[in-house]
């Protein structure tokens, strides 16, 4: 479930007056459900599936990224960041997407210090994004996803 992904993903977020979530660290680039829905051809069921998969996969990717950097496994850093980059591309958060791209480049260049510097804010952004997705789902009245 989306909530399970959140538990694994980490932190919480602040709620704005209109009920939407603001993501600290990724500035004015909120999770935009309607844009993602449009990208997916307006298919609500598919959107829900995509969000569920992301909620399941993202924590595993973040954990893998941490391990790969710690073990200085450049290829793995590059692969995981590349994959996150692709997934985040659908979720329409350009700033987080850029951070994933930077992490991929750090991996390609075996720049582990640089990757380590980027990682905390990237992890936080992805976690907040997950929270925001859940909140949007609840606000839109969509049924909870089941694995």
């Amino acid at each position, binding site marked *: 479930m989306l909530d399970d992904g959140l538990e694994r993903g980490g932190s919480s977020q602040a709620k704005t007056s209109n009920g939407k979530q603001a993501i600290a660290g990724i500035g004015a680039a909120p999770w935009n459900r309607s844009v993602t829905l449009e*990208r997916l051809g307006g298919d609500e069921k*598919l959107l829900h599936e995509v969000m569920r998969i992301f909620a399941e996969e993202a924590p595993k990717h973040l954990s893998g990224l941490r391990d790969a950097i710690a073990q200085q496994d450049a290829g793995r850093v590059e692969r995981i960041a590349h994959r996150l980059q*692709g*997934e985040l*591309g659908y979720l329409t958060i350009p700033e987080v997407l850029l951070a994933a791209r930077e992490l991929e480049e750090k991996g390609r260049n075996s720049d582990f210090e640089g990757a380590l510097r980027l990682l905390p804010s990237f992890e936080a952004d992805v976690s907040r994004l997950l929270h925001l997705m859940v909140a949007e789902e609840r606000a839109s009245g969509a049924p909870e996803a089941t694995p």
Partner: protein
Amino acid sequence: MMDAIAVQSLGSEQPGPACDRVLIAEDDPMFRRILRSWLEDWGYQITVAEDGAQAWHILQEISPPHLLILDWIMPNLNGIDLCRMVRERASSPYQYILLVTAKDDKQDLVRGLEAGADDYLSKPFDRDELRARLRTGRRILTLQDAQFKIGEELRLQANHDGLTGAWNRTAILGLLQREFEHAARSGNTVGLIMLDLDYFKKVNDTYGHLAGDDVLVEAAQRMRQAVRSYDLVGRYGGEEFLIVSPDCNTEQIQACAERIRSAMAREPVHAYGSKIAVTLSAGTAILAPGLNTEREALAAADAALYDAKSAGRNRVVSCT
């Protein structure tokens, strides 16, 4: 013919039969889910591989999909290497490859195309763009399919008698040559039957040439039914037929010729509104590499056929 097929498919919203099956090789479950959902909506039949090695395994099947969507970065075997392997295999019919990746540098694009991809799409791909690119692939594959069918048709026409569907003279003599070479290697013998419809000129003169054509078609059909599935029936010329039976000895070829004679004589042919009693004469011979040549065996079968005719027709004579 080709134009008709192409226009029909290009004008259709649904994929043509040549490319309605798509292999998706993608290790990311999110993209797999998105691709599957969209492609199924568009009417494609989907086969999914979760990595490159699994995709390669699927491509070894007898009838793999012709349209491939390959992710660049996959475990075990990446999309670029998979592309190269597909192209090195140079299989026919052609497989159209759409490479997808989050890589979007021009250099990456060049690398992907040089590896053998036909098209390249960066993730996250746009739904309409993906659909349009798949249609492009489908158009190319449909044209190829039409050309392939025309090639097959031409091959069939070049090798077969247009009236009876039997092998034509050139083809049956070529097959005889092939069977001779095969028999020379295996040490087996090849049976030959030369057949001629009795009084066929009279059939044409009495019932007309259209009825004569019907008789030829029916005779060829009864011959095919009387022989083994791997025996070869050819129209040697006019009302003469030649049957080549691989791995066959004297007794077997005599029995086969007798089955054909009997099948022809047993009941009349319904030809162009008439019931026409038709018989045939047959001469058999054995081709034994080392002992005789194809030409000698053919001459022997022909001589036996002549003897069958001289002895009163509607009979089988074997070359001794």
